[in-house]
């Protein structure tokens, strides 16, 4: 049993934290939030100088060939500092989706430039509010050309390529599949949408008969999407855990500094117990995220249960921390000036993207029920039993 990151991985974490503390201040986050620029280009370039974009991309496609554990480590720090860059859309969604479903040629066409930080990707599944996996899909492909629109698409306004779900013909009951789309071609309409967290922009993408390529590797659509979303849930859980940690630290610092009735408010049990609850939720979220990271990195089938659990726990932890952090800050927490709302906004944005906790809980229970009937009477794996 070795359920910890290695010393090298911890070093990467510390380096990432130091770098972002210095270069990704809340002033920078606010600048992106309050402008139309979509992301911070200087920060994005700095990330490529450090090799972050290629960290989980295989060497044959120009990456460093590291694994998902390294990517999880970076995700945690990016989440902690609310980094306003399209890293999640590019790495956790588009790159992973392409690695799972693309042909060698398709990977070779995009990944080396992604690894160099020269390309931004996104994943476009949603077309309207509700579940990501609702039955109806309006987008369709006819004669190799895509029609329809997707909304909201994380970082869709700045992405160079997308993986998009669409019906494989105009027929209403045609099977849905994933397609690879070069977004830098005429016929692609992009419109930035007003969002709850301006440092995590979303856009509507419209397609008027643009050229697409099918992505057929790696099984049927449902399995492909499940695998993509499980990986994304794990990586986003690390962003959420990072954010939840930063929020708890902010709440603790304020509880020690703010005095009422002659004492720091952190000395009152009502506040203490709130902070303790935040801590417990954060630790459970972290543990679940670690477990999912292990499953993701080692390709273990346990990911089917570990990823939803990571997402559910991390969503709960981040959300609870950010809402109670405002509560602990009192009136000041409700001001634009104090950073509490940046975390509050980010936690809600992350709670929705790739489907909300409600959807993931349903997915988890379906898988639990299925597993129970599959493995009935089979002994539980020794290594993880206790």
């Amino acid at each position, binding site marked *: 049993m070795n359920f910890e990151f290695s010393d090298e991985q911890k070093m990467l974490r510390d380096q990432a934290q130091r770098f972002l503390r210095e270069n990704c201040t809340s002033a920078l986050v606010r600048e992106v939030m309050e402008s139309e620029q979509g992301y911070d280009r200087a920060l994005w370039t700095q990330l490529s100088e450090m090799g972050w974009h290629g960290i989980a991309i295989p060497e044959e496609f120009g990456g460093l060939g590291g694994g998902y554990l390294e990517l999880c480590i970076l995700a945690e720090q990016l989440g902690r500092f609310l980094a306003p860059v399209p890293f999640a859309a590019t790495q956790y969604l588009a790159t992973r989706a392409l690695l799972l479903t693309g042909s060698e040629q398709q990977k070779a066409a995009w990944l080396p430039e992604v690894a160099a930080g020269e390309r931004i990707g996104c994943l476009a599944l949603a077309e309207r509010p509700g579940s990501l996996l609702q039955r109806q899909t309006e987008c369709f492909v006819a004669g190799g050309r895509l029609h329809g629109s997707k909304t909201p698409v994380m970082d869709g306004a700045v992405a160079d390529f997308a993986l998009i779900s669409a019906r494989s013909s105009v027929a209403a009951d045609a099977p849905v599949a994933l397609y690879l789309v070069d977004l830098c071609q005429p016929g692609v309409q992009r419109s930035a949408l007003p969002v709850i967290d301006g440092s995590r922009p979303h856009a509507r993408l419209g397609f008027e008969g643009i050229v697409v390529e099918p992505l057929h590797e790696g099984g049927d659509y449902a399995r492909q999407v499940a695998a993509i979303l499980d990986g994304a849930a794990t990586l986003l859980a690390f962003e959420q855990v990072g954010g939840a940690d930063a929020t708890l630290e902010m709440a603790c610092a304020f509880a020690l500094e703010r005095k009422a009735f002659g004492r720091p408010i952190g000395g009152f049990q009502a506040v203490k117990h709130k*902070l303790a*609850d935040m801590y417990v939720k954060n630790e459970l979220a972290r*543990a679940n995220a670690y477990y999912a990271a292990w499953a993701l990195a080692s390709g273990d089938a346990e990911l089917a249960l570990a990823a939803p659990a990571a997402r559910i*726990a991390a969503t709960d932890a981040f959300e609870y921390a950010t809402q109670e952090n405002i509560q602990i800050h009192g009136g000041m927490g409700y001001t634009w000036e104090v950073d509490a709302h940046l975390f509050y906004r980010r936690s809600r944005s992350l709670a929705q993207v790739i489907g909300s906790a409600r959807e993931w809980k349903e997915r988890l229970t379906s898988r*639990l029920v299925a597993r*129970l009937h599959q493995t009935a009477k089979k002994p539980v794996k020794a290594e993880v039993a206790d």
Partner: protein
Amino acid sequence: MDFKDTPEEAAFRAEVRAWLAEHAVRYDDRTTGELPLEKRLALGREWQALKAERGFAKITWPREFCGIGGTAMQQVIYQQEEANYRLPNVYFKVSLGMPLPILRRFGSPEQQQRYLGPGLRGDEIWCQLFSEPAAGSDLAGVRLRAVRDGDDWILNGQKIWTSWAQVSDFGVIVTRSDPSVPKHKGMTYFFVDMKSPGIEVRPIKQISGGEEFNEVYFTDVRVPDSQRLGDVHGGWKVALATLMEERFSVVDVTGGGPDLDHLIRFCEELALEDGLAIDDSDVRQRIAEWYTMEQGLKANYYRALTTLSNGGLPGPEGAINKICIPYKLQQMSKFAMDLMGAGGVLAPSEGQRASDYFVGWLEAAGYRIAGGTDEILRNTIAEQVLKMPADVRVDKDVPFNQL
């Protein structure tokens, strides 16, 4: 990062598994059926002796004290494998968990020679006499008086919530030895022979109907000074060490109640207005939440194990478990009973699936209090981990007899 056993660990697991397969079945309560306390205890002693002989009673301890000088990891592997059986271990849980390790740390070599072996073999059972009617969460408020008398001490007062005192041969005890100083400074720690004249044990009937714990009355009970552990008036330090010992054990994320598979099967058999409970979306949401919590606790425990096997000290995992598990058991049990609607008013008989929820619902109410309440544990996390200021302690510097 991996969960696999190292080759050495895998070999040890195989060894344990083979040994358990050969011996444990006879003691499993699924084999023996329902037995009265006396018989079950006798069987428990036999099982405990067998473990001690094999070196599995306290794996990390040396051979002479019924161990094999194993690693913390091996101890955990053993516990994991043993958990596949339902064995009569409960009577020795306190003995092995706190008093005996404390005796090994604070007792004289002669005392260790005399008591550790019989304790580990289950010949003698130990209890922990800590709480009093007026000293629960605030343990340092103990009043049971210890007065020096030559080479002895005379003990007078009352303890309460003492698990298994009715079957115990010895007990460790915190007493008030000097009431003229502030409370933390006037306590002394001993171990006592539970058969001493003047000790009276009265079982307390719990809301679950069980009688696991007791009131223990002390009337002029004579204890030799040689049975003092730690310094005179230095008992608080030993008491804290005892409480710290409680942390290092395998965690059962169900809290002894039904697991998630059990809940799923329960919901698959139960009809609601629109079909089976398992197809109800609210039910499905809750199942996912409890699974997520259980997984988080397990993974957190793996992290603690990693720290332990790397020679480090695990952090506040114990407090996290204690806050989460009983509360979850209570909520989950209540939820399952709720699903039964009007049928949930009945106390199900043992063996019925619903019975586990009824029992869990009752027992969880106690688990949330025993060994540190939800509230005290939240204080602990806030103060020790998050460094919030300690509660105002108005009695901190006041002599105990002036409170």
